[in-house]
């Protein structure tokens, strides 16, 4: 379905057919979650997603899917699954005003900055404020300091990230799409923080 066959999505047609409520939960055990990526161009959003979905860093090697929408399902310990539908947004400044179209209805927002770029950290804070104002009130937000492998060029102290995230009730993590460090943890932690549909 759609523009590019997005792995791994074996039963997409059926699933959405059943999923008439559109609220994101296919059933109590299998969540479907819209996740939107925000952050400056170049901070590593595409690489994080490709690393998570395809297990690879080099985005030029044999990618067979579109890089702007990807989905990936993870299994949690309590034998539930979460299918992340990841919406990339254009990071260029001229498209900033369009972001609300993308994060509307998102259950998760991942705001990414580059630990070697203070400007990207400032931009991340702009997105957080924007989401607080216009995002859905129960949105789960994660703040991600990427390119942690470049610690010798670090310009944003870890503590700054921690403090800002704590003040704003966000989950915080530093990642490296290059070394795969903390990439899966990022998504697992998000999955744990998702509000669960109440079951009897």
């Amino acid at each position, binding site marked *: 379905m759609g523009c590019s066959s997005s792995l791994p999505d074996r039963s997409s047609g059926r699933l959405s057919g059943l999923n008439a409520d559109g609220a994101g939960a296919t059933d109590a055990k299998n969540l479907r979650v819209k996740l939107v990526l925000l952050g400056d161009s170049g901070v590593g959003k*595409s690489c994080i997603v490709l690393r998570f979905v395809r297990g690879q860093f080099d985005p030029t090697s044999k990618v067979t899917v579109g890089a*702007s929408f990807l989905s990936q399902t993870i299994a949690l310990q309590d034998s539930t699954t979460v299918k992340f539908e990841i919406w990339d947004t254009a990071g260029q400044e001229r498209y900033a005003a369009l972001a609300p179209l993308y994060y509307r209805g998102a259950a998760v927002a991942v705001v990414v900055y580059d630990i070697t770029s203070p400007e990207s950290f400032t931009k991340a804070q702009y997105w957080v404020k924007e989401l607080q104002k216009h995002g859905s009130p129960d949105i789960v937000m994660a703040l991600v300091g990427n390119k942690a492998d470049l610690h010798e060029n670090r310009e944003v102290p870890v503590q700054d990230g921690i403090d800002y995230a704590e003040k704003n009730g966000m989950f915080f993590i530093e990642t490296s799409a290059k070394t795969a460090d903390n990439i899966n943890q990022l998504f697992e932690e998000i999955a744990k923080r998702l509000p669960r549909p109440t079951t009897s």
Partner: protein
Amino acid sequence: MDSGSTQSLTFYDFLDRMRNPTSLDLVRSIKSFIVSFSFYVANPENDGKRVQEFLLTMESAIRDHPLWAGASEEEIDCAVEGLEKYVMTKLFSRTFASSPEDTKIDRDISEKIHLLQNFLRPEHLDIPLVLQNEASWLLAEKELQKINAFKAPREKLLCILNCCRVINNLLLNTSMTENRVLAGADDFLPVLIYANPPQLHSNLKFIQLYRRQAKLVSEVAYYFTNLVSAKSFIADLDSKSLSIDEIEFQESMQAARLASKETQIEPPPSPALDEIAALAGQMDPVPSTRMHDNITGGSNYPFMEADAGELTVGDVERLLSLYKDVVTKYASLCRAVKHLSISKTESPVPVLKENKAELKMPEGRSKNVDHSRGE
């Protein structure tokens, strides 16, 4: 989404089942739902809600119906797809671009695009040179322009997805041949902004309101949102949206305005053209089927005003593709006109193939009640 051809088969399967005597109750509900629209003034949001609710209600009616006893999820799904197509084709003239505000937005956006086309270049959106592939962009635009040849929300949506597929292929090919990092939405959106059909706003609104909500999710919703976003970008576009000097932007817009005043030969968009094109093509937006583009002002045929001396070698490719396009359209038109004059003698109903797709009426009420609201 399935390919167009299987879907068109399932549409006829749906109509077949509706001809089965046991489905009389369903047919009656469908008919009376469609007729009920003639009792109220058009109101897009409200009409949208009513259609969505009706489709949900009918979905469970179909699920419990003896005719679908033991049917798989796919079969039920196909039936509801068929239903959506049937209902929305019937309600099209009432629900598509029906409010003056929407028509105005369409016109404003078209005018703006028309002006921008005089001077906007990919560099203004900082689209990297490797992605400036005229042939692919033209193809993407072609796919999207087919949107006006269809009345069913699902088929309109399919045109959007086909267009996005072309752009995605371009991005993927480029990333492989040029060894360029895939930049995701950063690359995708600007290219999409270049492809825009007439009545973009109304098409998007129509899909948003009338495509089954359960189907406007996930990847489909993502690409749909990208087009909404492209539209909104164009609608709000000013010099600050572009890599262009403020003064240069104003001057270019002014020059374009003057130029378009001089050559204003805008024939009103004729609905008959839509019908003809749809007849000429297939019922479904299969990518290879050529459809019409709306034949509005000169922007689609940029060489109309040109002198031979102004042309460059670089224009040859564009000229050739326009030439082929025009010939294809002309051929389709001839075929369609022929077809039309044949079918005219058979049936006074000028709507697509619906004379064939008519549902059987219970209790011999008059046919085509829904057309009684003067079209």
